[in-house]
């Protein structure tokens, strides 16, 4: 299990997870876990915080739950109905929605914040553990897709890759 910061002693692992794109090239995609939406509070965007069993060996429960809870908070902020959203709505209506040609909606601003947050989480926490979170907006806000990568070349990996190549070497 990798620490948060890949150290020099980790050898291949460190260099391979140096960059998230590198993660894709050097590791093979083993599985995907989908965190579904939680509709208990209505149609507002909220994801289930239930810890999937596939991630048990890959990441600490608290880290995962923190990520999902923070995302839920961001979405709640985006969809909040209150003074600011009313103001924005009325202003937009008064200008026949032309104001959105020059200004971003509050929702879009929060979505940008979310994208940044996810990238940061990926780089700091998930990539070193061979995981990758896909922004829910790319999946129609239906799921948080977490890709689980098996490292190809590392000897410490539990995937069968090294043993497979061994088996065919006859």
């Amino acid at each position, binding site marked *: 299990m990798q620490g948060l910061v890949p150290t020099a002693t980790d050898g*291949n692992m460190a*260099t391979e997870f*140096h*960059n*998230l*794109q*590198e993660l*894709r*090239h*050097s590791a*093979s*995609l*083993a*599985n*995907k876990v*989908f965190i579904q*939406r939680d*509709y*208990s*509070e*209505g*149609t507002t965007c909220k994801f289930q915080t239930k810890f999937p069993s*596939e991630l048990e060996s890959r990441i600490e429960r608290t880290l995962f739950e923190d990520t999902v809870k923070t995302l839920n908070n961001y979405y709640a902020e985006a*969809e909040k*109905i209150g003074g600011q*959203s*009313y103001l924005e*709505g009325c202003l*937009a*209506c008064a200008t*026949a*929605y032309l104001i959105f040609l020059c200004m971003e*909606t*509050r*929702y879009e601003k929060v979505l940008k914040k979310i*994208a940044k947050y*996810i990238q940061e989480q990926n780089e700091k926490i998930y990539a070193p553990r061979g995981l990758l*979170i*896909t*922004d829910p907006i*790319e*999946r*129609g806000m*239906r*799921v948080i*897709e977490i890709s689980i990568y*098996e490292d*190809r070349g590392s000897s410490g990996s*539990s*995937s*069968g*890759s090294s*043993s*497979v*190549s*061994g*088996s*065919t*070497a*006859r």
Partner: protein
Amino acid sequence: MHLGVSESMRECEYSQISTRSSTPMETPYKKRTPKKRKWEAFPGRNKFYCDGRIMMAKQTGVFYLTLVLILVTCGLFFTFDCPYLAQQLTPIIPVIGGVLFLFVLGTLLRTSFSDPGVLPRATSDEAADLERQIDVANGSTGYRPPPRTKEVVINGQTVKLKYCFTCKIFRPPRASHCSLCDNCVERFDHHCPWVGNCVGRRNYRFFYMFILSLSFLTIFIFAFVITHIILSSHRNGFLKALKDSPASVLEVVVCFFSVWSIVGLSGFHTYLISSNQTTNEDIKGSWSSKRGKDNYNPYSHGNIFTNCCAALCGPLPPSLIDRRGFVQSDTPQLASPTNGITMYGATQSQQSHMCDQDQCIQSTKFVLQAAATPLLQQQSSEPVILTASPENGVSLPGRTSLALGGPCTSLPLGQPTPPTSTPSLSCHEATDMLPIHGHTHNHSHPLQEPVAHHHFLTPEEVPSPPGMLHCGSPLGHSHTVQAGFYNPASQDSLHEDSVRGLVKLSSV
């Protein structure tokens, strides 16, 4: 040859580290083919204009009728009635009329051209994952399970979420599938032919503004045309007044009929907004107290004012379908194309413990076909298997027990070329859990051989066996591997053996 494979694997490991930072979601877009925008590959029945900026339903005839009616009536009003009214009464009348007209047109176009809140269809990985969960839950009987529903408790009220077979998702609450546009739409209200689009979460407020302002405009024009005729007839007599401005007659007729329908509709939607219901829900009586004493609307905010504000002034969610984005052809899927076939074999492992009976029968056919085809004709990655020399004289029947032991696994379920690999993968994926029961009582002795055969010869099914395509789930790509979590190591020996068996078979 096997060396070649592991070398290529090693090559990938040591590929150059890219120092350019990029978001995890971006993949370098290779310009192999002309750039295709996502709207061009959109699966629904929508029409797109202005390079994806405008989105409408397929049938737009009635929309043009609406436009023509509004433009003609207003045009006639401004040309024939306004000069008289401006002179006789006040010039403010044309001004107000103009403002109303522009507002109506603006909201109409906004309603018609925007994305109503279409939910993008599930990716193949998502769909496969859902299918698996459903099969686990159902215990899958038969090939086509009964309509799938999921129950959810929302604010104390039990709501059933339906599974959409077209979009392969469980529809969120209040979403519905529009059969005309062939899309699932969030907070689906209705499909309005007058507007030429669905009315859903993202354009409901524009729709409401449109019908509200149109009712004001209709009443306005109606009132002032009548005023014009009356004033004119005081001077010149009724008939002469009518002869002087024949357009007014037309306007009156149009407005008269419109007022009843449009004003009625506005009133109805005002009621819907204040109670936070959709047309769909109201028609079905979903939250009506007639259904039960405890039946209430879980989405309502409690009071009329909040409901109205939320519907009209709430935050406007962005479009989920990204019409103008470019199609990314190299998104990593679970059936990764860069894996060698051996990799597949190991990581795939027990994709599914058992095969679908249907699939096994199909594969028996292919086995018999393939037996006539020499292995050497297969693709370049095949040699990996070919070089495994049959060291023990392992006979096929003997192998079957082994194959059953780690059922339907050993040999790569995928084929060397990923596109063709997916059908069989998906079939296995879907029938993953079910099989243990099905297998034992559906398949007895006779299956043992087919099972083995099937797996030994799967790679030869590269010419996409059609039978594989409709196995358990109608999916394209599916995920490959739960295998990471099973123990692939034990499968390797099976793999070796099956490879040997395969070669043995080919030599027959």
